């Protein structure tokens, strides 16, 4: 035994910082959620161009995922990692870089998203300069983390840390590959992938952001903080190991279930479905493991609000991971996709699993970090019950909204016609449920306010200076050998003896590399064929790139976040082709950098919009949707009639597109001239139809030109018989 003991202390200052950041950004994220929840039943609530639903919805999702859940993960990871490794974080400076860098990124997101700077890929909206900053801060975090691992004083690495390691590695990979893009100005870029490939990349990212940002890090937290709060070890350590490896092996394949019945090749969609269904087992294994950790401590749950939060969190994990695989089954997905069902599913996970696990953890940490009693246990109870009823109201209302709208979309009457041909009728039906959601959200936020007040009062009674306990532990002995007698005999005996596994666990770098390989190989096998095997994306001769003016209009479409409510992807299902027209083909979106297929239909699909209405209809509709569709809930965009098109910027957009292989021909040199000419035509047609005059250089003309182009090329192909 090594006699020398190191004396050291843990860095709790950084944990306190992350704790406050979690709660404050959480409140901000929830409040933005409440605003957009009110905007749906009350379109007048879209107060200014910067505050419309399309711009605030990405801010809500980013704030809740990366600011609230992100800071919660960091808070718990810094606290638990140091204690599980018996080592202080390697560099306090890097910890601070991580903290302040991450907060600066959040502030940058809060400014740029309302300004309309967006890559328009869900949860990856932030533009390229911020993406680079995220990569830099993440690397600082990772370096600090991995060096700390090598300086640890426990030989075994506890399973919670495996979950953290997998999260750190995978999030880095996902972030880099999904965000590869060509800049066209300081805050505008185009994804290097197009159409089917971009969609595949995006949902590989999107699903694994849920997996490796909202699931694995929080499972790590669960495996540390639940045993802590219950004061007993996890029910089965074996099960937790199995939980870990199954998630690493399975999760990465599940992304394509977000693209069922779209133009994605069928094999990919089926593969995603199968792996999603397999996820049932580890998810429920993990849930059972969490709940059974409370064996013999159930009487404590009635008295301890912290355990209450954990029990609901783990139950919500079980419910949403039961529902996820179910939704990934194609026939269920056909009903649920594009509806509020998905929104309800997500909120069971986010409000229940991530939210409640965070609250339980924060309340457990507060007295220890602020070195005083919690201010009020009664207020903790209030927070718990307010938030629990908030979740119930939210999800019950939104599940019914999803099922209602999904069923209305597919209903045929006895004559074989759509029963609800007017889309807006299916929206009207949701309004009562939207108001119940507002109530549920208000309760949840009230709970959050109670929580913050409680934490503030706890903090206020902290000691003048924090005590910093000194911990003593011996460093790892480099000459250590496994006392376990090496197995003799055949390969099988040596394999099951597990000496190799103990050695692997002892080598964090090797362990990390193996995890990374499992994740990368899976990703390559799933994604690469759509890039390199031609039969996956059959081309269509009549599909041509957008004109420069249409491209400018598409930029506006992206900026206003239209894709948050409108899909451009008609599924090959009878009730969709009846309602919207011919189903969408993979070859149609070969020039779509990025793809704009959308994931939710709060408004109707737009893939075949071109030519359906005259130009003037679009001008009036954008000015005030309720002028043409009385019950529409779309925000009004009157400013598009006064904002002037930035013709010089169009050239940059065209050049960036040309750089990633879009055949632009002459437009590479003359984009602004071409755009002006087409704008004059559109403006003339609007004026001739009795519309407003002098629109030739206004943004509304570009947007109209874009909307009128949607689906036109395919119609031309059918008309001319050319394929």
């Amino acid at each position, binding site marked *: *035994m*090594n006699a020398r003991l190191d004396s050291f202390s843990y860095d709790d200052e950084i944990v306190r910082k992350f704790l406050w950041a979690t709660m404050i950004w959480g409140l901000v994220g929830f409040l933005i959620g409440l605003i957009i929840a009110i905007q749906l039943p009350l379109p007048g609530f879209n107060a200014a161009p910067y505050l419309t639903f399309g711009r605030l919805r990405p801010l809500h999702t980013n704030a809740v995922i990366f600011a609230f859940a992100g800071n919660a993960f960091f808070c718990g990871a810094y606290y*638990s990692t140091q*204690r*599980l490794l*018996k080592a202080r974080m390697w560099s306090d400076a890097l910890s601070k870089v991580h903290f302040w860098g991450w907060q600066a990124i959040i502030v940058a997101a809060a400014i740029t998203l309302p300004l309309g700077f967006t890559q328009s890929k869900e949860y990856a909206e932030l533009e390229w300069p911020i993406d680079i900053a995220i990569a830099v801060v993440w690397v600082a975090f990772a370096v600090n983390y991995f060096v700390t691992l090598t300086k640890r*004083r*426990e*030989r*075994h690495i*506890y*399973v*919670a840390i495996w979950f953290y390691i997998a999260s750190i590695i995978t999030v880095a990979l996902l972030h880099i590959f999904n965000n590869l893009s060509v800049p066209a100005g300081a805050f505008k870029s185009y994804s290097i992938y197009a159409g089917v490939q971009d969609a595949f990349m995006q949902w590989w990212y999107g699903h694994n952001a849920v997996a490796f940002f909202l699931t694995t890090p929080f499972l790590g937290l669960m*495996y*540390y*903080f639940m*045993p*802590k709060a219950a*004061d*007993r*070890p*996890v029910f089965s*350590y*074996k099960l937790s*190991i*199995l939980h870990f*490896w*199954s998630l690493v*092996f399975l999760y990465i394949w599940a992304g394509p279930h977000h693209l069922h019945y779209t133009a994605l090749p069928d094999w990919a969609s089926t593969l995603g479905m199968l792996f999603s269904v397999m996820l049932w087992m580890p998810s429920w294994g993990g849930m059972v493991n969490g709940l059974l950790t409370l064996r013999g401590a159930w009487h404590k749950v009635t008295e301890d609000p912290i355990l209450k939060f954990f029990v609901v969190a783990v139950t919500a994990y079980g419910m949403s991971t039961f529902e996820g695989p179910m939704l990934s089954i194609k026939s269920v997905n056909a009903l649920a996709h594009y509806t509020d069902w998905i929104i309800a599913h997500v909120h069971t996970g986010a409000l229940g699993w991530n939210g409640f696990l965070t609250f339980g953890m924060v309340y457990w940490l507060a007295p220890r970090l602020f070195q005083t009693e919690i201010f009020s246990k009664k207020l903790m109870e209030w927070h718990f019950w307010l938030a629990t009823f908030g979740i119930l109201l939210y999800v019950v209302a939104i599940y019914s909204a999803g099922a209602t709208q999904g069923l209305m979309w597919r209903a045929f009457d006895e004559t074989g016609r759509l029963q609800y041909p007017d889309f807006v009728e299916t929206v009207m039906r949701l309004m009562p449920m939207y108001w119940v959601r507002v109530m549920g959200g208000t309760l949840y936020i009230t709970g959050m306010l109670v929580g913050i007040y409680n934490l503030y009062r706890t903090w206020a009674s902290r000691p003048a200076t924090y005590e910093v306990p000194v*911990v*003593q*532990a*011996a*460093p*790892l*002995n480099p000459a*250590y050998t496994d*006392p376990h007698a090496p197995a003799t005999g055949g390969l099988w005996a040596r*394999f*099951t*003896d*597990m000496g190799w*596994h*103990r050695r692997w666990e002892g080598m964090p770098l090797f362990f990390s590399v193996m995890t990374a390989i*499992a994740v990368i*190989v*899976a990703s390559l*096998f799933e994604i690469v*064929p759509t*890039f*390199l*095997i*031609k*039969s996956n994306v059959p081309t269509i001769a009549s599909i041509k790139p957008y004109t420069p003016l249409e491209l400018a209009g598409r930029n506006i479409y992206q900026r206003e976040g239209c894709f948050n409510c409108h899909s451009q992807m008609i599924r090959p299902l009878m009730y969709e082709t009846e309602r919207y027209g011919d189903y969408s083909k993979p070859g149609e979106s070969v020039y779509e950098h990025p793809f704009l297929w959308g994931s939710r239909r709060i408004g109707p699909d737009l893939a075949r919009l071109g030519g359906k209405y005259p130009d003037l209809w679009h001008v009036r509709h954008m000015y005030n949707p309720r002028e043409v569709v009385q019950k529409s809930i779309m925000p009004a965009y009157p400013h598009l009639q006064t904002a002037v098109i930035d013709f010089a910027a169009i050239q940059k957009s065209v050049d960036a597109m040309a750089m990633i292989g879009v055949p632009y021909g002459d437009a590479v040199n003359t984009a602004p001239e071409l755009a002006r000419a087409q704008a004059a035509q559109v403006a003339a047609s609007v004026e001739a139809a009795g519309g407003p005059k002098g629109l030739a250089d206004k943004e509304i003309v570009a947007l109209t030109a874009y909307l009128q182009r949607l689906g036109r090329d395919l119609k031309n192909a059918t008309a001319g018989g050319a394929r």
Partner: protein
Amino acid sequence: MRLSDIMSAANLSAYAEVAMILFIAAFVAIVIATFAPGRQRTYDAASRMPLDDEHPQTPR
């Protein structure tokens, strides 16, 4: 000739199945190893790690 022409002609699809089998094999190996007898003591020590902030639980 583009890269995608070469890749399309190369008939690589069988390798996806090979990868699948390797993955399943690796996973089954982990399951067997995890549940192999004789590890309970190690796991018991490891599962107590979160409960003690001051005293190391596993050998130095």
